[in-house]
């Protein structure tokens, strides 16, 4: 198929698999969301198989080698949007420097799913229950979107505008995700609470990255970033919680303070997988567990250091 020309009157092709990003962006410019971008298919095909929806016209990104990359830099790693979860989980730099991402990639669906599912797809499908977004929020990831108009990079924490809505324009494609390495001494905590131990959709999940200053019992929270799944209409950062914990001694943070902050950050609901009450309660417990593990690590560092 040749590069589509820029006149919008043509109907979109049933299936278009461009060989270059430039061709993909040109198609996107012409047909926008009438051409549904597809990478690993692990979300979209489930929806089509469930019946009602007709299979739409598809922009198949699977031939774009330039998006299937992992590029470690001195301060961050940049992951191409169609890199698979399996590839991410197996990458030595990610395992060493971004262990929460390696863990969430390994908890995405089954092994077979991980082989096909892409990080970009997990973001763009915009499910509030998606497995990797909490970790990206905690690490402070940035997204690069491209269109024929050019590229722009935005913070991931502002990307989800509402249920299944994002800041991506109709002519844009997500091309890469850049994740800064956490500063030395930052402590990560990731836990997915699924309906079972594997091949599950999360009832609630938390990724946390906590930076402290001071040693042992006197350690104070210098910065904390969180990401929740299944706690509201979109993957949620918890800015109120981050603010509430800033400057607090780790030892003094109790359930009441966490719950109060999270009441502003989260809006969980009852659904087929769990209840709002359970999600709210476990969200608090997970944050406390994250802080507890931070205390342990600080104490350990003090002991060994």
């Amino acid at each position: 198929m040749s590069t589509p020309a820029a006149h919008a009157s043509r109907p979109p092709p049933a299936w278009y698999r461009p060989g270059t990003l430039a061709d993909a962006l040109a198609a996107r410019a012409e047909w926008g969301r009438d051409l549904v971008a597809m990478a690993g298919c692990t979300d979209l095909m489930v929806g089509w198989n469930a019946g009602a929806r007709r299979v739409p016209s598809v922009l198949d990104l699977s031939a774009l080698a330039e998006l299937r990359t992992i590029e470690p830099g001195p301060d961050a790693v940049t992951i191409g949007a169609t890199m698979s979860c399996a590839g991410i989980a197996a990458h030595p730099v990610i395992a060493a420097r971004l262990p929460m991402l390696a863990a969430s990639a390994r908890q995405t669906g089954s092994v077979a799913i991980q082989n096909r599912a892409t990080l970009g797809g997990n973001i763009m499908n915009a499910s509030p229950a998606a497995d990797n977004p909490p970790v990206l929020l905690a690490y402070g990831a940035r997204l690069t979107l491209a269109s024929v108009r050019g590229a722009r990079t935005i913070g991931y924490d502002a990307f989800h505008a509402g249920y299944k809505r994002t800041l991506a324009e109709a002519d844009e494609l997500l091309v890469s995700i850049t994740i800064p390495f956490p500063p030395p001494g930052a402590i990560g905590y990731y836990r997915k609470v699924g309906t079972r131990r594997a091949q599950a959709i999360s009832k609630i999940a938390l990724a946390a990255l906590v930076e402290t200053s001071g040693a042992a019992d006197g350690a104070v929270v210098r910065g904390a970033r969180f990401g929740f799944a299944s706690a509201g209409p979109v993957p949620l950062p918890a800015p109120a919680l981050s603010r509430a914990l800033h400057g607090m001694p780790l030892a003094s943070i109790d359930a009441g303070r966490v719950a109060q902050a999270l009441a502003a950050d989260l809006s969980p609901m009852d659904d087929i997988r769990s209840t709002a009450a359970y999600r709210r309660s476990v969200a608090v417990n997970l944050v406390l567990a994250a802080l507890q593990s931070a205390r342990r690590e600080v104490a350990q560092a003090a002991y060994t250091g």
Partner: protein
Amino acid sequence: MKVPDDAMAAVAVAATAAAAAPRLGLLGAAVARKDAPAKILGQARYVDDLVRPGMLHGATVRTRCAGGTLERIEFGPGIDWDAFVVVSAADVPGINATQMIEQDQPVLADRCFRHAGEPVLLLAHPDRDLLRAAVEAVTLHEWPEPSPVFSIDDALAQRGQVCPGNVYRDYLMQRGDIAAGEAAAEVVFEGRFETGAQEHVYIEPQGMIAHVDAAGVLVVEGSMQCPYYVLGTLTAVTGRDAGRVRVVHCTTGGGFGGKEEYPSHIAAHAALLSLKAGGRPVKLVYDRSEDMLATPKRHPSRTLVRIGARRDGRLCFMDIDFALDGGAYTTLSPVVLSRGVIHAPGPYACANARVRGRAVATHHPPNGAFRGFGAPQSIFAIEQAMDGLARALGLSPLELRRVNMLRPGDRSVAGQPIDHTTDFDAVLDQALRESGYVAKREAFAASNARNAASGDPLRHGIGLATFHHGAGFTGNGEVVLASEARVRADVDGRVEVVASSSEMGQGNTTTLCQVVAEALGLPLDRVSQAPVDTFDVPDSGPTVASRTCMVVGLIVEQAARRLRAELIEKAGLPASGADEHAFAAACARYLDGHPRLEAQARYEPPANVQWDETVFQGSPYASYAWAAYVAEVEVDLTTCEVALSGFTAVQEVGKVVNPVIAAGQVEGGVVQGIGFALFEKVSWGGNGAMANNRLTNYIIPTSADIPPVRVFFQEQPGGIGPAGAKGLGELPMDGPGPAILSAVNSALGSRIASLPVLPEDVMAAAAGVAS
């Protein structure tokens, strides 16, 4: 369970050495499964793999309301309806009802219907996409039932009506004098226990293909447990006699009871479409969502238990009110109920006991057979009540069980004498030894207290369930069935087991062949099972109720012995020392003068097994398997998730005919029981049908959720099956529910009384304990 590689070698050695007498040691040998190679190599053909010339695909249009009246069927625009085969109730030539215990369930609803998901219209077309579009283009105009009934309590209180009284059956089993027992009791425990619906999740969804062959015979092939049940419905629905209807069993991917009864519906649907299409083949295969929406589930239950004991723990009385949600039609509920009632007192001796059992009608899709058949529900309740009574008495759950378990010389509440072949203490002792129950119970109590004090969120618990399970049809069922099976041999000495028992992954082809090979003194590879085809095999009864190895095994063994006797008498088969070559030579000599070489046998119940259904007294089962299961759990209060950290299953099953198959039955049953206890929750939609009818939302455990299941067998003599075998298949479904909940409650100090117990329930219970 370890499967020694050298077991095969041992069998081979035994086969050579035992040529002098037909003692091959095949009963008890871990021989490889006969159905395995074809399945492993992908050669086995399931119904959806079959393609017949000119085949149409069928689909079903179903009601959406929870009962009501069908006013009109509207065929929408944009569809070339002339190109479709369309079948409604008006096209049923015979009786519009499946042939179960009652004939209350239509194969296609006419005007009145009782539940959402009830089949109304059948469509067939060569193109599956057009078929799907056509199904969507049909609108059923339903006048909904104004006050649908969705719970046992509402049904019994008659808040709404499904059928007059809302009760399908009301049974009473009693013994002794409840009032006297209550007067003697020093401590009484009272509780209400509930269990939820459960989906079978056999790996192969249900399906059938029907066509009319050149001879004018209606042939229906498919996935099923009970070919003769399907035949019975087909003859009634089509008005044809059994000589013009043929049912053929395809490779079947699991059943668990779910393919006992519903295949009759699908077979009738496929047959009606094919007949209307002039005999063209019609394939009707459900996808997972339709299968979960439409087919029966395990009956939800609620049990009210009052039990009392003297201070020393000796039971004085049991008063049990057991109720099952039968759903919208009778199906198999009466017999599920009778098994539940008989198992309700557990394996305990109590002189004064009363069990009332009712199967009630609701507007849910009908519930039906599922491994355990009512017993897992009632055993769950009595086991939890025993824990409650132990607590009230200040005894451990173990002590209370030890005092009251049935022992030789006792009679069960049903009135069955416990014979001297049973040593339940030995089973319990092994379970305690292997699990370390007593020591762990103490250690967990101490560590839980420490963790609570230090803020550690982990709690540990251990739970024990003791139970027995009667094998074969309940009461006089086996007498009524009078199952028949045959064994035949050809001129080369190849032997076939000819029975209607359906292999569906449980291994019965292999075990039946082992039994026959052993009886004939032949190596196993000389014996196979004939394809299950009602034009060839007799009615050996349905493949259900833990009966196949025990009951059908018994009759094929007898048939094999008759065949051998015939060859000794009429074809010069040496009475001893004959190997497979001598056997083949004798077969050839016999068939020189006879048209066929075949022997038949029929089930005859043991003389001491009498059952009076009118008063629910007697000996309801010829054999019981006994078991003690121990579950260990770790509860993390951070998330309230329950992780199983250990599971020990000890059972006494008479004779283990094939240790690998037997262990597989136990492991699989335990896993299904773990799902029943901790994961599997049917969410009912507003119309009373399953709302989470997808495997992404109906959660069954994966291997990551299952601890090592340690399986141990005891083989005490006494089963009525081959070499003393008892039924086994359902037993392992009974124990995990109560053992796991006991473990959870002991970890938390909680009193959770229903299954499944999900983290949300644990959280509520833990909050209750804390406050």
